[in-house]
């Protein structure tokens, strides 16, 4: 089940906002829910995996679509 329960479009936001908004967006989800995050910040390539890992969430998928990085994070 990789259908996102919610999509966060953090396009155009610079560090630290993608992580901050991701944190706020995932709070309302239930464990096991998928959050889709879209970012144009290159720093998110390392920040999102590190953040998810530290907090016990699972990065299900990370892909690049042109200028955008799209992540699927399963809430732990």
């Amino acid at each position, binding site marked *: 089940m990789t259908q996102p329960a919610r999509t966060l479009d953090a396009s155009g936001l610079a560090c630290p906002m993608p992580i*901050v908004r991701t944190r706020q967006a995932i709070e309302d989800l239930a464990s096991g829910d998928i959050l889709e995050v879209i970012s144009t910040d290159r720093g998110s390539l390392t920040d999102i995996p590190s953040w998810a890992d530290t*907090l016990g969430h699972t990065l299900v998928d990370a892909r690049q679509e042109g200028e955008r990085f799209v992540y699927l994070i399963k809430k732990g």
Partner: protein
Amino acid sequence: MSASSEERTTIVAWSGDLDRVWPQLILATTAAAYGMTTTVFFTFWGLFTLKRPEVKVTGSDWKTKGLGVMNRQGLTKLNMAGLGPLLMKKVAAEHKVAPPSELIETAQELGVRLWPCSMTMDLMGLTPADLIDGVGEPVGAATALAEMQRSAINLFI
């Protein structure tokens, strides 16, 4: 309040220059996004970040005057107190970074504790009413140090 030291970050914000205010607030909000109990202790020129923009430092003794003079010298380094909010937003947009005012708001949303240094307030002749809403009670160095002792990550910026 029962977080272990691994879950605490304390930042001593000592400078009011934009090139330091940014890392102070970016690291504070990021620590909070990691779920850490995060505290920023605003001391000396760092306290200018918490001052209401319309409040002027009007202390009359030599110490306060000294701080004011040194603050003016900071203008060339994009000092917070020297730049108007509009110019600040412009500079922030050029760097594609959120302006300090937005980062402060975000920090507050995330529960970052913003502690003004009581000694610096005395030095500048500021009262809690001169500071922006939502900041903590003024604290002394001992309170800040006690929090640093409990924190795994301590930064002086």
